[in-house]
């Protein structure tokens, strides 16, 4: 096979996070990330990478640099205090008989 003379570009494209809405009424779910030179191309790449089997009706792309993430170092102060506060869970109510759709 004659190899196309593709230029060897450095991997210099920014990273984008991709969110797909599977169908109307559901919220967009994060599905992964990809590289693209700009937002318009990121949407098109997302269409090819994440919706080629009919997974979605709507796509969002967000620059990964725009996302602030909690740090693994802060995991304890962020999340541990919730563990012993059982009153935050709706487990102390008797469900009256005959209540439907609860």
């Amino acid at each position, binding site marked *: *096979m004659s190899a196309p003379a593709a230029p060897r570009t450095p991997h210099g494209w920014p990273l984008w996070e991709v969110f797909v809405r599977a169908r109307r009424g559901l919220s967009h779910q994060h599905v992964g990330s990809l590289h693209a030179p700009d937002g318009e191309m990121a949407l098109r790449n997302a269409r090819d*990478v994440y919706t080629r089997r009919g997974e979605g009706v709507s796509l969002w792309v967000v620059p990964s640099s725009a996302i602030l993430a909690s740090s693994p170092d802060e995991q304890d102060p962020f999340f541990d205090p919730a563990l012993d506060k059982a009153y935050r869970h709706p487990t102390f109510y008797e469900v009256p008989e005959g209540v439907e759709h609860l």
Partner: protein
Amino acid sequence: MSTPAAAPREAPTPTTPPLVAYLLGLGDDALILAQRLGEWITRAPQIEEDIALGNIALDLLGQARVLLTRAGEVEGAGRDEDALAYLRDEREFRNVCLVEIPNGDFAVTMARQLVFSAYQYELWTALRHSGEPVLADLAAKALKEVAYHRDHATQWVLRLGDGTDEGHRRMQAGLDRVWPYVDELFTPDDAAAQLPGEAADPAALRARWTAYVEDVIARATLTVPTPTWHSRGGRAGLHTEHLGHLLPQMQHLHRAHPGARW
């Protein structure tokens, strides 16, 4: 032999029915371009682009399968899509020369994609009303695919043309490389001319194609090339040397192992 009109000892060169010839032309365009685009897989500038080109190639392959299958049915000689794709020789292929030229760099491929997908967009738009039901059905499906192919090529031509100096230079060189093959797309075709209710007249597609493509080229700050020569003859089986190298690669597995399956 008792009949007066005895069959000649050697079969005459069979004349291909116009509908078969027309279906083969459209099917071979899609098949050969799918093969060319497949050469980009693992070689595209980015993995995302690898997937995009692979998707486009598979769309075209799907179109080719419908067209070649139907061509075989209409011909009635027992040839299926595999027989037509893998067991014909170069002179029996009816694709335009544009689809067989080598990929070149990414800009050449995008120039070819812009030209061909904008052509196919007009073609399938026209064929939605074809009297041949398989063509009309395929047109409805393929039009959505090709709208994306055309958009994909447009985005890249705009970015490369209106981007860096090197991108601009290479994109212009890409247009210059493929433009001699443009006229052939719109050359009146014997088969199409004999199928007024079923085929699309190639010449009638040109005005809308030109309006779209020249708008993209202008927005990309590029120049519409004015080639000094024009390819012709692909629909009659007269091809560039490049098809002769493409076919063995595409066909050798099936010829070595007839009916091979995954």
